[in-house]
């Protein structure tokens, strides 16, 4: 299970998560994910292209951090690339209607800066 971040300019951060976002995987990254994501007015693109399995506990972590970010005038977006299984899970659960989801990174970046 991996989680890294890269700052793109002063207010946009890309957080890349890889591996299985199941119970142990989500517990392993939960604290670092929150610390990396949540800050005042921060725009965050969560890159899920390398996530091999997305369970409800992983979705819960994403929603929790997206809400915390929104309450601090920030914004979260999701980048899924060609990861069809993760995209399907996000669509099935309606998460894509709550947090904008993109298949290409440049579109996510443009939306984050709007």
């Amino acid at each position, binding site marked *: 299970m991996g989680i890294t971040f890269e700052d793109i300019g002063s207010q946009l951060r890309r957080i890349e998560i890889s591996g299985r976002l199941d119970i142990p995987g989500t517990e392993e990254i939960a604290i670092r994910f929150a610390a990396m994501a949540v800050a005042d007015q921060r725009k965050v693109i969560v890159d899920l292209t390398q996530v091999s399995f997305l*369970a409800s506990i992983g979705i819960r972590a994403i929603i929790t951090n997206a809400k915390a970010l929104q309450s601090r005038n920030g914004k979260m977006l999701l980048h899924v690339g060609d990861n069809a299984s993760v995209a399907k899970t996000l669509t*099935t659960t*309606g998460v894509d209607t709550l947090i904008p989801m993109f298949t290409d990174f440049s579109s996510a970046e443009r939306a984050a800066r709007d």
Partner: protein
Amino acid sequence: MARWQARTSSTLTIFADGAEVRRAADWLERSGCDLEVPPAQIERLDLCLHEALANVISHSGVPPHETVSLRLDVRHLQDGHEASVTIMDSGSPFDVTKAKSKAAPVKLADADPGGLGLLMIRSNCDAMTHARRNGHNELSITVRWLNAH
């Protein structure tokens, strides 16, 4: 009506602990592969099994030192195939097939981040049955696929 052609099974016993879901997933992948279940169908069952186990571990009242039994049955029929994973736990009675899925929120601010597991099971399986036998819940989750042509 399709006639049974062959049936094969594999079993595993795990503890009702979150750390054990990886062992269950590894068993499902290995057993499914051995029993000729296509990877796409194993992926569907993997998600269903994880969510069912998460429910047992978090809500059934089964302590982590008690066990949960798993069984994978694969049936090859004349016109297709089906694979069922059955989860047997000693927790409080809970018929997941009768539980209501929660309504999808419209706004992020209103979103309750919990309770998506049942929706994920329902959207990834073709059938689901529950029985209560000898003080145990028996939840069977089935996926089906057609013969390759």
